[in-house]
């Protein structure tokens, strides 16, 4: 097992401050401390080589969990093993086989070109000259970095910087990769590129990848398995397709007709939309075959399309705690 997490908890103690003048003064004399439970009893395992997405709304506990896995945060209780190491023990051997990329933070040294950071990482991770050149060449080609290497980091665009961040994180060929919102703020085209790179890298090097993202595109393109977390609790752990079936027991049936007859659609399914000859219905999964064949028999059908509901909708449902998906 590459990553093994058992009954993980993390509590933070935070100072509560009231807004405004009086609140600010009051907090000088009396500090109110509140305990926030960021992660509550999370357990999961990820076999090596797998790529898994961590989903959840803002503040769900995704980043906190990733930070514990990377050894940055000390768990309040529970156990973590990553490739046989306990992350918080801060062993150099552990740090050499893992890597962390945070979309909102930079490891590149700000005022000098990315290549300088790469060279520092080469020394720190004790990468052999040959291995370094080979890895760098590969990353430069895959991520199209050639022209970026010698420009000061601060002059790079967000997308260019992110590609260099990924390269910096992969130079030592980590076995485990933690990606915290790697595509945040990127345009659709760059998102797609970064995504394709991560997928390809995972396939070629059998790197275990755990990624968090707000973009469904990242998840559907890269991962078969998702972990859904909200309010610090794990709500779902399993295949993405299964989640769709569980949460949305219907499919969307789109039928293009020569003209829309003025009838009630209740016998077929729940009407979503009917305009310009196109009828969209929500039909229970078990009835989809029957309903579509009835359409073909009874109407002049020009085109018929069966789709799963959009992923965003599924996830929104999954985030609701009463969804009981696990």
């Amino acid at each position, binding site marked *: 097992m590459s990553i093994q997490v058992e009954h993980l908890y993390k509590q933070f103690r935070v100072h509560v401050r009231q807004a405004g003048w009086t609140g600010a003064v009051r907090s000088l004399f009396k500090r109110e401390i509140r305990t926030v439970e960021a992660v509550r009893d999370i357990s999961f395992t990820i076999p090596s080589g797998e790529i898994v997405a961590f989903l959840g709304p803002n503040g769900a506990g995704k980043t906190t969990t990733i930070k514990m896995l990377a050894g940055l945060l000390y768990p309040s209780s529970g156990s973590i093993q990553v490739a046989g190491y306990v992350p918080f023990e801060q062993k150099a051997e552990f*740090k*050499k086989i893992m*890597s962390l990329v945070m*979309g909102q933070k930079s490891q590149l040294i700000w005022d000098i070109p990315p290549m300088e950071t790469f060279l*520092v990482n080469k020394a*720190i*991770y004790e990468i052999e000259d040959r291995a370094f050149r080979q890895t760098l060449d590969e990353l430069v080609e895959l991520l199209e970095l050639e022209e970026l290497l010698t420009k000061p980091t601060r002059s790079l665009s967000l997308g260019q910087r992110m590609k260099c961040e990924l390269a910096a994180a992969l130079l030592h060929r980590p076995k485990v990769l933690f990606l*915290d919102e790697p595509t945040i703020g990127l345009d659709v085209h760059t998102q797609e590129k970064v995504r394709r790179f991560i997928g390809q890298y995972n396939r070629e090097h059998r790197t275990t990848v755990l990624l968090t993202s707000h973009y469904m595109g990242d998840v559907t393109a890269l991962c078969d398995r998702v972990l859904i977390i909200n309010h610090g609790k794990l709500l779902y752990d399993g295949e993405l397709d299964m989640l769709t079936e569980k949460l949305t027991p219907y499919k969307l049936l789109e039928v293009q007709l020569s003209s829309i007859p003025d009838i009630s659609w209740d016998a077929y399914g729940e009407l979503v939309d009917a305009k310009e000859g196109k009828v969209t219905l929500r039909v229970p999964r078990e009835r989809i075959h029957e309903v579509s064949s009835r359409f073909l028999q009874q109407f002049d059908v020009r085109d018929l399309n069966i789709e799963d509901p959009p992923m965003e909708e599924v996830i929104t449902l999954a985030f609701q705690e009463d969804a009981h998906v696990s």
Partner: protein
Amino acid sequence: MFRKYSVLLRMKYVEMFAYRLATIVWMTGAMVQPLITMMVWMNIDPDQENAFIFYFAALIFVERMTSAWDVWELEREIREGTFSYQIVRPFHPIHWAIAENIVYKALFLVILIPAWGLLAVFIPALRLDQISAAQWLLFFCALLLAAVIRFLFSYTFGLLGFWVTKVTALYGMFEAVSLFLSGRIAPMSLLPPFLKTISFYLPFRYMVGFPIEILTGSVQGMDIVYGFGWAAVWCMFFMLAVLLLWKAGLRKNQAVGG
């Protein structure tokens, strides 16, 4: 280790030149306060003019060789969360800070030594022909120790950033005390006796004043031995402090920010 350091030193060197203007402004800016203090003392006691010129010139040199800014860097990095990347890499963050200190201080050294030589041509008070070889040796040892203590002092406070968000405010308070007790406002010999006694036991004298005293000859014989003894004690104290605060701080770390 040696290879890692050579790469870090090179990187810090490149980085320093990316900020070349800031470095120069910062360096010259730091000379203003001792120069003004020097003029004040020369005005108070004109008979000692030459002694003051020598003392404060030496002060500027020692000040540049020992001053540490790590508390500001660490506070910012911890507060903004970029320190996380230092923690996850397999090399203790203190080495980055040490490398930076070496690079900047080497730069100051190559600027200040010729500058001193040039000024000594015109200002007889700055000539160094009275200083013995033994004094030089002791001076450089004391200077090195001073740089180490001041660096560790700054780093200790920086690590407190794991607990206190604005740790530089606390540091500023100690700096204010240090200004008087380290010999930066007045030579040690001019301090009231009780302050002199206190400063003997506190770390501040060994961050700035002690090496200058060796150079001017105002500390002699066994007092030099005691001085080195206390400097060594403080050096070890702050080493231990850094070690313990690092361990405890990591447990406290909130690794702020997405």
